[in-house]
């Protein structure tokens, strides 16, 4: 019995309506009053339960044209659940009217819903009843309006000219003040003033602009309060005014250390929506470049993590290695960190002559270095003392909080989207999924270092088995189309003209695709209204969920441990704030 029937039998067929989407994810419309019951059932009682709240977001439906068969409503709340036992997702939608934009909070079911609900409130103005602190999360507290609503301007030219008066400046200053009472905590306990230590938004240990305020007892962390949004660039809003093609460079910068990896997630979703099959050579080029970027990301993480625990030298070694890696990326793409290299239907250009030599040299070079780093870092007793047993989470906690990627695998759970749901050609490649036990900082380090080796293995296979053939699909929506035949037949010329001048027209529909990105599972939930620009782009990033766990991980530890924890979970603020 599939999950749809199961739910309809249990909760009655009236409140639960299936919807067809381009992806294979079962999508159900649920009556608002059924939501807590259905979610509770799916998480707790259902056979092979949906234990992870993978994503929670909303859609402004007010100007959408193609909504055939969907219940009426101005806004839609979307719950995206993940079941590890089934290896299946489930999408639950709730239609909300503009007159009553409210839903029940699900924090009691999933603690990770906290930030997702705040984000939905911030971006769409949907209130969540029972939320302990429903306040803005990505936008500053004094922001007017809800940015992802369709009537909110996307460009500065749509708004009043910007001026910074003294009152406004004062307001901005005040907005940054930390007020314990807003978080519901006392300023003093037993007549003693509590020490709040503010780290960030500018602090050498926070890996980008975000702020942690820690409540201290001596140097021990009693609690931590996070303030994010300093890196928010409106990546999702930008999606609603860029064509499907011109949005690709924006994705590069979401997880800015992952570069190409972001292109991958976005384009897999677009291609699924448009029905494009990438040719084999294109697939393998993509995988090779993506794995290079995984290594690049992990090298940066390796160096900075060790620097966070106080060893100053490894960061120079790993950055040095990354430069060698960037030599390959430069030769192939012409750019370094944000190559903007994948295209709808393939990649931008074929591999340059001599690429094999570059890749082969790197494959021979890096393993030696990794061995040296093992001796220098992973086997170092001081390093072990700083990371073992620090910031440990259990597998249950990890699943509750939406943890994916290496951080999940460090809890001794073998879950890799490349293996479990092979995408883009990964089913053709051999590699292992490293895991570690204990879920502490050291385990997370072990997993990532082993992942570098596995990525090298994958790249080696790409090198040995790179097929001949086109690097881009001949599908009319592939953008820009292969140039070769444009001057020979009129159809290709028209496709080329339309694709380049307008941008490709992607058929109306909805699609989600997740990949195993550098830091965890990155997914794009795209909605097309049959136009040249997406109707809604939702970017599900791993770091958002991971950073939310920081207070849980750091309670009871000391300030140096907090730095080790921050370093070990590997996030960048671009990936958190988008």
């Amino acid at each position: 019995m599939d999950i749809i029937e199961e739910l309809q039998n249990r909760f009655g067929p009236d409140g639960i309506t299936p919807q067809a989407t381009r992806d294979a994810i079962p999508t159900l419309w649920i009556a608002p009053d059924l939501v807590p019951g259905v979610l509770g059932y799916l998480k707790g009682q259902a056979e092979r339960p949906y234990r992870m709240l993978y994503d929670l977001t909303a859609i402004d439906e007010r100007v959408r044209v193609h909504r055939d068969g969907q219940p009426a409503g101005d806004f839609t709340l979307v719950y995206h659940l993940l079941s590890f036992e089934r290896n299946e997702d489930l999408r639950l939608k709730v239609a909300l009217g503009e007159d009553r934009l409210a839903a029940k909070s699900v924090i009691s079911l999933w603690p990770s819903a906290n930030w997702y609900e705040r984000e939905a409130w911030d971006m769409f103005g949907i209130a969540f009843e029972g939320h302990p602190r429903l306040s803005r999360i990505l936008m500053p507290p004094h922001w007017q309006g809800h940015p992802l609503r369709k009537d909110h301007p996307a460009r500065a030219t749509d708004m009043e000219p910007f001026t910074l008066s003294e009152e406004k400046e004062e307001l901005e200053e005040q907005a940054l003040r930390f007020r314990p009472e807003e978080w519901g905590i006392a300023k003093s306990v037993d007549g003693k003033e509590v020490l709040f230590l503010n780290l960030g938004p500018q602090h050498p240990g926070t890996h980008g602009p975000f702020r942690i305020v820690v409540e201290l007892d001596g140097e021990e962390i009693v609690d931590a309060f996070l303030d994010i949004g300093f890196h928010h660039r409106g990546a999702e809003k930008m999606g609603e005014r860029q064509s499907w093609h011109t949005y690709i460079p924006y994705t590069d910068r979401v997880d800015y250390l992952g570069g190409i990896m972001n292109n991958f997630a976005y384009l897999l979703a677009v291609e699924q929506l448009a029905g494009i099959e990438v040719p084999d050579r294109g697939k393998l080029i993509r995988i090779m470049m993506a794995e290079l970027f995984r290594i690049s990301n992990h090298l940066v993480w390796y160096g900075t993590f060790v620097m966070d625990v106080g060893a100053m030298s490894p960061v120079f070694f790993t950055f040095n290695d990354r430069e060698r890696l960037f030599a390959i990326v430069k030769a192939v793409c012409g750019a370094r960190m944000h190559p903007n290299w994948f295209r709808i239907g393939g990649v931008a250009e074929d591999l340059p002559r001599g690429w094999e030599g570059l890749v082969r040299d790197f494959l021979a070079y890096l393993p030696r270095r990794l061995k040296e780093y093992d001796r220098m870092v992973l086997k170092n007793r001081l390093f072990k003392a700083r990371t073992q047993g620090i910031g440990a989470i259990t597998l249950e906690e990890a699943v509750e909080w939406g943890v994916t990627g290496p951080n999940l695998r460090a809890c001794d759970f073998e879950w890799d989207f490349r293996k479990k749901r092979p995408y883009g050609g990964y089913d053709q490649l051999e590699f292992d999924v490293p895991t570690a036990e204990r879920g502490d900082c050291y385990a997370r380090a072990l997993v990532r270092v082993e992942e570098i080796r596995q990525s090298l293995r994958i790249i080696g296979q790409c090198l040995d088995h790179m097929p001949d053939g086109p690097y881009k699909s001949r599908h009319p929506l592939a953008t820009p189309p292969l140039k070769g035949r444009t001057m020979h037949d009129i159809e290709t010329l028209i496709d080329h003209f339309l694709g380049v001048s307008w941008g490709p027209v992607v058929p109306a529909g909805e699609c989600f695709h997740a990949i195993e990105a550098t830091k965890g599972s990155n997914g794009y939930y795209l909605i097309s209204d049959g136009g040249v620009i997406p109707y809604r782009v939702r970017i599900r990033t791993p770091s958002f969920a991971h950073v939310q766990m920081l207070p849980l991980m750091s309670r009871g530890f000391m300030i140096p441990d907090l730095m080790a924890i921050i370093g070990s979970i590997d996030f960048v603020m671009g990936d958190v704030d988008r």
Partner: protein
Amino acid sequence: MNESINIPWLVGSLVAAIAFVALNASMLVWLERKVAGHIQRRIGPKEVGPFGLFQSFADGLKLMSKQLIVPECSDRILFKVAPLLVMVPAIMSFVVIPFSENLVARNINIGLLVIFAFASVNVLGLLLGGWGSANKYAVISGARAVSQNVAYEIPMLVTVVTMIMVTQTMNLNEIVLQQPDIFHWYIFRLNASPLMPVAFLIFFVCSMAETNRAPFDLGEAESELVAGFHTEYAGMGFGLFFLGEYANVFIGCSLATILFLGGWQSPFGVFPGVWWFLLKVYTLIFVVMWARWTFPRTTLYGLLNLSWKILIPISLFNLVLTGVMLKVF
């Protein structure tokens, strides 16, 4: 040496000490940057002067031309006094250090005691600097520095007491004179105590911890506390802390040299002199730098455990053992 105070010699020596501290610090900064550079597969400074030798002077000029900003909420007096409390005792310690048999400002009988008396003022400077800044990072750092210094002063002093028992003098020059060649260096005098090399190690580790050098640099742990006690200091305020740190590193290493490695004596018994002293000291300083650019930082608990559970018991045991050996043999 004659006991009446030779004023011109003393003043000259003090000026020389200050000049040496400044010059030495700038060279050490250059050396540190070069060492760090080569350990990290970089070149290090190379633009200013030959091999970048004048880089530190350029930095010093820059620091001196900067305004000393006193934060609004700080305790102005403490804030300004703190760097001096670090700097002045460090310079005073140079007065009794024998660079060679005759190159010593005041060869007094309690030289060792003088150095430790001045060295213990240093921590006061860190604490007051942290407290006076009225900055939470600085306060936490000051507290760390104090607990660290107290914890490491004990094994260090116990080791020094052991050494005084063996040498029977606190006059640094006499201690050096007792070690004419490598076989008489105290580090190898196993007949005095079989634990002598261990004592040297304890002393060296403690002096690294006392000077807040990595891997014991909890006080200025930059990934946690930004810059620790000198977070709020600009210009030469910071510069004095910096100079003081290098002066203290030099003093720590020269004490280790004097007590264990024969000071200005040659290892072969010929050509004793200042060059041997400097060679030994700078070798030790190189080790200090090497450790800094190699190891991660310890945690506060790890640091205190090392002191209270390992160094103090061993040094106390060594004290008793040495006493017994002195009595028996």
